[in-house]
């Protein structure tokens, strides 16, 4: 038990400033982990050691070695190469999803909140209904319509996340709409759309960055989950999710098949979570209020 915990608060000294490594560790570690994932994804685009798709039946189920850092799978394909190619798929899908959700959410939410009226009520009704499908549910339903494909995953997840972005943007717009600088912009005769995009929406930037980071993680996880279920990006194109699904038959004899794709997802998510926390501490005023540092 520390002294601090026993001291009655009336005489409690001001809380000491956190040591530097605690203040900086989140951002640094998170950024480093994210960098590893992004470099992996870039390598997936530019160069991988072996062909990630072409089978090689002479090299099935080789344990990790110097030649094959993460071993080979049931088709004799190099797992490390597939992880890199999978990083490319996951990161691409996640970025595209966030871009789609943020653009749709910002534009619709901004217009809806700024102009109000029956269109706003309709948008809110639709948003509430879309948010009634928890987690993967809406994405699963859309994938049932679209069939497994990369574009399908992007659209399904983009649609799933857009309502959350929309709500965030609309809320900010509603609170900013009546402020003096907006009124000033209207008073000097700016067109409404100009006022909205120039003076109102920039106020959403900080919370949108925080939310976008979190959504990037959610999209990455959701894509893996969909691919794991066989409803995401179809084999033979490697993704971390479908690699895990394919490992299920053989991971008793070849545990590395399940180990590495899962580790890849975890590292990516850990990076995003840790980095996102640091980002939120710095950017989101609400959270900054919570975490007052003397």
């Amino acid at each position, binding site marked *: 038990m520390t002294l601090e915990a026993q001291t009655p608060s009336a005489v409690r000294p001001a809380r000491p400033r956190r040591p530097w490594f605690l203040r900086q560790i989140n951002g640094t570690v998170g950024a480093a982990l994210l960098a590893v994932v992004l470099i992996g994804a870039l390598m997936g685009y530019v160069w991988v050691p072996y062909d990630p798709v072409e089978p090689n039946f002479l090299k099935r189920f080789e344990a990790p070695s110097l030649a094959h850092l993460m071993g080979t799978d049931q088709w004799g394909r190099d797992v490390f190469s597939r992880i890199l190619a999978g990083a490319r798929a996951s990161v691409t899908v996640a970025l595209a999803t966030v871009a789609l959700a943020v653009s749709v959410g910002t534009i619709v939410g901004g217009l809806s909140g700024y102009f109000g009226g029956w269109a706003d009520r309709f948008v809110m009704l639709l948003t509430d*209904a879309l948010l009634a*499908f928890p987690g*993967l549910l809406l994405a699963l339903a859309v994938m049932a319509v679209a069939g497994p494909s990369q574009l399908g995953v992007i659209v399904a997840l983009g649609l799933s996340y857009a309502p959350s972005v929309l709500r965030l943007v609309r809320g900010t717009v509603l609170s900013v709409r009546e402020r003096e600088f907006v009124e000033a912009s209207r008073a000097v005769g700016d067109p409404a759309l100009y006022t909205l995009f120039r003076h109102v929406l920039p106020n959403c930037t900080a919370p949108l960055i925080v939310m976008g980071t979190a959504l990037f993680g959610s999209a990455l996880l959701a894509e893996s989950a969909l691919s794991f279920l066989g*409803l995401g990006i179809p084999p033979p194109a490697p993704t971390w999710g479908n690699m895990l699904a394919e490992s299920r038959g053989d991971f008793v004899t070849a*545990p590395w098949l399940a180990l590495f794709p899962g580790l890849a997802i975890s590292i990516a998510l850990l990076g995003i979570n840790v980095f996102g926390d640091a980002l939120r501490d710095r950017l989101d005023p609400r959270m900054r209020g919570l975490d007052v540092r003397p």
Partner: protein
Amino acid sequence: MWAHVARRTAMMVPTLLVVSIIVFALIRAIPGDPAEIMLNDLDSDAAVAAMRTELGLDRPIPVQYAIWIGNVLTGDLGTSIRTGQPVAEALFDRLGVTATITALAIGVAVLLAIPAGLIAAWKQDTFTDAAIIGVSILFLSLPSFWLGLMMIWLFAITLGWLPAIGFVSISEDFVGGLRYLIMPVATLALVEMAVVARMMRAQTLEVLRLDYVTHARAKGLPESLVLTRHVARNALGPAVTVIGLILGGLLGGASVTETVFSIPGIGRLLVDAIYARDYPVLQGCLLLIAFIYVCVNLLVDLAYAVLDPRVRL
């Protein structure tokens, strides 16, 4: 208070109506003709046409929706194309399994996470705090399907302590059933625990800085009483709202966990329905899960209003 309850409940109706329209529209948008899927290729065009008439597929779409929603409201969700079982019956059978696992996971997560979050905040910036945050963020980053696979590998295959996959109802064989439940519940609970613990910590930090906490300490109240009576009680209200969130995560992710452990729950039913293009079952699953989620969120909102009367203003 009752006016608040009535108003919030009434607000559900339009939402659920739009939910049903979305579900109906999505299913209609699936390529392929349900009548042809139900029959095999050898059947004549006349048989397909007859089936279309029987299914009502030849009527205008708004009429089809009206008939369908009327049936849904009277509890008739149609019959499964694959098994011929009434959908409502299939849903009911599977829901129990998912509900058991979900309820246990929430229970375990909340019981462990609330004290953990409270202690982390109380010992802010100490090693204990760092450890609790660190472990939480680690579990938050493990995909449940991978955690599940690794648990199977460790506890079932390598150590042989637990059965790898499957499900036995605890009403039939209590001890055996529990053995099947441990890994799925642990998988779900560990991830959700992280969410609750982080939320509880943030809320506690906020409450700890309030004047009445200083006052309670100043009047000499033992720290344990300050924490339980003043801090925990006030931090708990907002933390309760995450239970709605967790339930969403669990229901929305049930398909994945139930696939990993081969559990015959509603999530597995939904995924199988997608594979088999069993539209009535898919519709039923989507509607039921959305309905449960909306109801639980309503309950959470109401509970929040009870715990914190200021909300009602």
